[in-house]
């Protein structure tokens, strides 16, 4: 397998969800470096630090205190330095309105939080694979839109 490491960020206010996510990602064959954030503001503070290596993929929960996922998404897309980041929304909400709103605000992937661990592993792996294809192939980023 390739030796490149993918750097990934997750912003989620639920401690259990963060832990499960990082366990799932450890079990996947793709080598990754995961950074965890407790809420949107913490993530945004990190992303706007000077001289950091930006993650190639961000997972965003929608319902978080202080700054929620939608707000982060809009801020990221309006920041010239960050606007090309790949963003996956990671939420329990399956309301069509939430999903469409996040796409309109510039999300690339919408993931419904699965309710069991093996499912979680499966979807996270799928997202990583997709993200990998978009980073290494001639695929059109403008139409990078998936719901998993």
């Amino acid at each position, binding site marked *: *397998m*390739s030796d490149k490491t993918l750097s990934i960020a997750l912003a989620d206010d639920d401690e259990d969800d963060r832990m499960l996510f990082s366990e799932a990602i450890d079990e996947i*064959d*793709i080598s990754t470096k995961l950074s965890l954030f407790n809420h949107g503001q913490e993530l945004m503070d990190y992303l706007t630090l000077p001289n950091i290596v930006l993650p190639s993929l961000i997972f965003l929960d929608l319902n978080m205190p202080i700054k929620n996922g939608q707000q982060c998404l809009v801020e990221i897309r309006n920041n010239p330095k960050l606007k090309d980041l790949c963003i996956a929304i990671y939420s329990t909400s399956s309301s069509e309105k939430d999903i*469409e709103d996040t*796409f*309109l605000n*510039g999300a690339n992937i*919408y993931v419904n939080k699965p309710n069991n661990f093996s499912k979680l592993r499966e979807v996270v792996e799928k997202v*990583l*694979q*997709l993200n*990998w*294809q978009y980073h*290494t*192939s*001639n*695929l*059109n980023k*403008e*139409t990078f*839109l*998936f*719901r*998993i």
Partner: protein
Amino acid sequence: MTLFVKYNFDLVCKTLLKEQLDALDISYTLNSLGEIQINGALSPEKLEILTTSLNKYGIEILTKQKVTLEDRIKNAIDDYLKNKEFRTVKLSTYLSDKLHYSYAHLSTIFSENTYTSIENYMILKKVDLAKELICHTDLTLTEIAFRIDYSSVAHLSGQFKKTTGLTPSAFQRIMNNKKL
């Protein structure tokens, strides 16, 4: 005032490459998207100017070591999907004929390096093409299905939905609303 534009990626890239190569008076043939055959030698100075001028447009010249077999497979798949006359044979036959390796070998190398299979990549690429046609042309789904060799609209919609999680019409609605 806001203007909306429609563009053809393939044509944009090709025209851009042509302009840059012509400006430097280089003799060349464009083989496929991602491969330029230079006729004769290219002086290091010219190569450097070309590298800088292409860099401005986000185009990077790959060095020999960087052009891996999986990249060549990907380019061949792009060609295969864009030219109807190539599709008279199966993808596996086309790839092994073009790259002079057995399909089994190609498929192993591909899976080892890209986290996906040739088949899955081809589906992703076909759906990507369908997305591009939905966004940038006025073709109906029936015409799009015909163009990229789906036996029916139902087959195209099914694979689109299975791959992207969205129906073609939901995708189109989102893309239209995004523009506004």
